[in-house]
């Protein structure tokens, strides 16, 4: 109707995958190449993890969920050169395994991430050239008026990365002379529990622990659309997009705590015309939302997912990513698992979608890319 162009909107995407979950998952050998596990592994830095499941199921599995270690992370203020201090470097990067991410917005600030011993630095051309380190340009997505950005990737676990070696001293020089501003970082030690932090080298930086206690919210009387038969072989691609999109919207509405999904909501159509999808099949359910907030690692989410899988008939896991790229950044993902999301024609005609073979569980995974969040 109006002639306004919207570049950002055109780059937004949602990858949807419907897959069948294996009957048994060995926690030591998770199929990380397959959806939905691939989505979890591809988002190593998360800031919010939310699980939505029926309240009566939660009361049954509460004790097993409580056994899960809560995610622990800390906020520290340090210089990039502090990463290369002997004690910190040897304990956390060479022998240990940590996740770190610095403050700043990708696309305009210098942003650092450290994962599996690989330090990635995103910076602008001017700073990049002054560091004297090798890097490669980041694709800009053809944006107008955006300055060229570069990515430096340093594998600090290489045998050549030792104090005194030439290539390493170049990094030390760059951190001393160019990248010498103190930053706020989030720090997560993947190899220790919160109890034994007292003697660790991170204490030198006086970390502030982030409390990632689970936040439980009861969501009573929610009209819940059916997950069964959301996709089926007879449906066209457009129909599947619509039904999956509407369900993803409903999930987000529940996460938002919107009154529109409450069964008792009676808002005037002047204010909102939202309606819960799947009009005849909706039922009113008491749900519960469990939310963790902090720097949360991929392995922890995987652990949570694996412990929920055998115990809950259906649940929703939603994860928001930290450290988004400026162009086509990964924003996070939502996974819904339930029996018979992908309805084969035989099953639906026989039992009206009510079949619940224990082996036939599906996972529906949405991966979001490219939204604009300022706060």
């Amino acid at each position, binding site marked *: *109707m*109006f002639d306004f162009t919207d570049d950002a*909107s055109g780059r937004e995407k*949602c990858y*949807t995958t419907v897959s069948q979950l294996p009957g048994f998952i060995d926690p030591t050998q998770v199929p990380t190449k397959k959806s939905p596990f691939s989505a979890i592994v591809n988002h190593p830095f998360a800031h919010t993890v939310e699980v939505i499941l029926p309240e009566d199921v939660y009361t049954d599995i509460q004790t097993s969920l409580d056994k899960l270690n809560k995610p622990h992370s800390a906020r520290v203020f340090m210089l990039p050169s502090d990463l290369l201090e002997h004690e910190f470097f040897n304990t956390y990067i060479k022998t240990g395994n940590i996740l770190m991410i610095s403050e700043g917005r990708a696309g305009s600030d210098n942003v650092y991430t450290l994962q599996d011993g690989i330090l990635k630095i995103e910076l602008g051309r001017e700073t990049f050239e002054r560091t004297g380190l090798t890097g490669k340009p980041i694709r800009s997505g053809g944006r107008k008026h955006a300055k060229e950005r570069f990515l430096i990737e340093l594998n600090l676990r290489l045998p050549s990365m030792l104090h005194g070696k030439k290539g390493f001293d170049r990094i030390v020089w760059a951190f001393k002379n160019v990248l010498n501003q103190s930053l*706020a970082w989030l720090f997560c030690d993947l190899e220790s529990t919160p109890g034994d932090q007292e003697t660790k080298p991170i204490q030198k930086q006086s970390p502030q622990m982030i409390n990632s206690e689970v936040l439980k919210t009861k969501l009573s009387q929610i009209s819940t659309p059916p997950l069964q038969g959301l996709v089926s072989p007879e449906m066209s691609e457009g129909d599947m997009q619509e039904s999956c999109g509407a369900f993803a919207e409903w999930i987000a509405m529940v*996460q938002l705590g919107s009154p*529109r999904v409450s069964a008792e909501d009676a808002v005037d159509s002047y204010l*909102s015309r939202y309606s819960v999808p799947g009009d005849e099949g909706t039922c009113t359910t008491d749900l519960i939302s469990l939310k963790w907030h902090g720097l949360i690692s991929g392995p922890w989410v995987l652990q949570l997912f694996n412990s929920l899988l055998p115990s809950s008939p259906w649940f929703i896991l939603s994860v928001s990513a930290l450290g988004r790229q400026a162009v086509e950044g990964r924003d996070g993902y939502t996974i819904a698992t339930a029996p018979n999301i992908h309805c084969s024609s035989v099953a639906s005609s026989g039992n009206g979608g009510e079949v619940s073979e224990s082996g036939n569980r599906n996972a529906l995974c949405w991966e979001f890319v490219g939204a604009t969040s*300022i706060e």
Partner: protein
Amino acid sequence: MADVQRKDPMTEAPPSTAPKRKAPDSTPTTINFTSRNPPWTYLKLQLIPQPDTPSLQPLDPLSARTYLSSALSQFLGLTGTAIPIDILKIENKGSSANGTTKYDAVWVRVPRDDGAAVVAAISSWIGGSGSGSGAAWRVCAKGNYLGALVSGSGRDLFVP
């Protein structure tokens, strides 16, 4: 507009042509597709009062709708008021789930094609001249998938 492909481990036929051989029913199939053009755009808007005005009433759905309509009609005329807006949620000051917020906020949904026009209209609006309740809208988040926006950007973690 959309790419749909069904991946069968047995048949890797391009999606346009019908597969010659049907995979046996027992093999698990994976369906994946990319959606680029969903029907809606979602916005999180903060209502920022002018510094010299005393204080606004706490935001409610009806006044939010009125402010938005006023912004749209000011910028786009009568056609602007025809853009359907769905109020999804009102977040009042200090009632947010993860901490305190300084301003009232509203989550709305508009048709995706009108999204850019709505953003242009509300970001240029200074409302309530004369009645003494000057206010402006600030766009906090915008996206075509609400699931990507609900938890924010996580920037609050870096602030002590």
